[in-house]
């Protein structure tokens, strides 16, 4: 559904608690590597972006991102990271993400814009601790079955990835 169609319908009612519950549920699926269930939360036109640390405002078509996935690329990313031959994630990282400062930043028809801060700890055997810190920015479509992720944007707070190394899992 595009913005023009959204403009034609009344803004959906939404509470912060609903959005927060959704974020907590999503975080649990990601931390537990239940990626097929996570994928079911995606809208058909879902996108997943991590802009570069030094150009958070640049658009993905003209700026080199860290991750810039459309729906099909997300599907391929899940296939990849679930494969034991995805060496960067085998054995799988253990992650634990804490989500806070949840805010609804706007509603347009059935689209809810929401943001949150996160800390994601990632552990691999014999390796340094990785701590990813930043904010999530979402466009969520509110449907009868619950929220569906239309856009998921991860803004990293660090000046560069540096010690964080790769983003080889779903951040």
């Amino acid at each position, binding site marked *: 559904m595009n913005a023009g169609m959204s403009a034609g319908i009344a803004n959906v009612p939404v509470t912060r608690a609903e959005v927060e519950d959704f974020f907590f549920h999503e975080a649990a699926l990601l931390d537990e590597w239940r990626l097929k269930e996570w994928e079911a939360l995606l809208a058909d036109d879902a996108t997943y972006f*991590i802009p570069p640390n030094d*150009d958070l405002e640049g658009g993905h078509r003209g700026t*080199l*991102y*860290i991750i*810039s996935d459309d729906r099909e690329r997300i599907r391929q990313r899940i296939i*990849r990271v679930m494969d034991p031959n995805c060496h960067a994630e085998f054995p799988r990282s253990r992650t634990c993400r804490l989500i806070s400062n949840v805010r609804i930043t706007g509603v347009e028809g059935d689209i809810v814009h929401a943001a949150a801060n996160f800390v994601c700890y990632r552990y691999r055997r014999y*390796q340094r601790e990785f701590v990813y810190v930043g904010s999530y920015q979402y466009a969520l479509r509110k449907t009868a079955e619950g929220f569906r992720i239309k856009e998921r944007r991860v803004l990293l707070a660090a000046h560069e*990835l540096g010690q964080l*190394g790769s983003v080889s899992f779903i951040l």
Partner: protein
Amino acid sequence: MTGARSFVVDDREKGIFLLDREALVSDEVLRGEMRNIFAKCWIYVGHGSELKKNGDFHTRKVAGRPVIFARDGKGQVRCHLNTCRHRGALVCTERKGNTRRFNCVYHGWIYNNDGSMARVPGDEAYTAAFDKTTFGLKAPAKFESYRDFWFMNLDPDAVSLVDYLGAATEYIDLVVDQSPSNNMEVISGTQEYDVNANWKLMVENSVDDYHLPSTHSTWLNFMANSGVKMEPSKDPALVLPTHGLAIDLGNGHFTTDNVNFRGRPVAAWIPIYGEDAKPEMAAIREELVQRVGPERAKRICDTNRNLVIFPNLVINDGSSVTIRTFYPDGANKMQVTAWALGPVEESESARARRLDAFLTFYGPGGFATPDDVEALELVQQGLANYTDDRWSEMSRGMGREGEQLNSDEHHLRTFWRHWDKMMTGAQA
């Protein structure tokens, strides 16, 4: 020269090449590299396109040195050591910007963007022996460019950059020719990531095509899932679907030169780009044919080339064009910086396709680079056993006469032979 011992066994008669793993873990070796390699070789600083307007600057570390890469008020590209002539503080802390002056926050010494001294507060307190005009920001001993790729050299006796690059210029030309106006630009967005591995492992990894099927099987699956044919070659000597060469370019530089099978933004279509992209990509190729002729156009469009400029610059002209440089932060760790490069006149859609193609393979969130990082970190972890398992085996393809294959180790030996010469002080 220090006359350090050799770290390689290079037995051409038997066809055996071994590397002493201490070269990859030793702090003493690293100190030797600082003196004998990073202070002697031409080291990549930046691309002129990063400095679009007079006064533009980027601060970065080059060979561990904080520098300011800047275009001065008259348009001249400069490299200043980012250190105040008074007490040594950084004089610029912003990552990038545009300025006429660099101001030291400590005592307020001010420099013009060409590096010259602008102002010393309270300079009447100095004797006549203090000549403030001699207190401009220092620059590396040499700073030169080839086709807008700028390099510095800390050795005043170094040969010119063009002489240093030698035969490698041909491979830089194949990249620059992709722009109708011969103007390539670094695209906004910098990928900076650390790898807990010795920097020389990244040199090897950047051109080692032997590892592709095992390290990158998930990428190969992704390509196959996306409709890109990945038939194994019928030639049993080949590890990859197509024929590829490893070429020694002299002075420690080398490249792979492979028949393309993975798609190229200029200009070899694959299904990942989408049907819509076909006409535009055909037009890109046609422009190239008109401009450089059918033979050279085919060379540009239908081969991939991963080029290493000794010691630490990689230009990957593969799924997209990357500039990658890396620098040791201790013997067991490196800091990697990577950029995407594209023609300045590229359309919005071609640019988006180039960036998307980049991310299919490269970078910290790509479908291949994280597994390279993992492989290198596994090597470094395993190397803790080096005193009891001393030698890395690098003889692959040594008995081969004539053409050397990309999936053999001729090019890696080229690097190590040159490295060893520079470290031992032998005549290169």
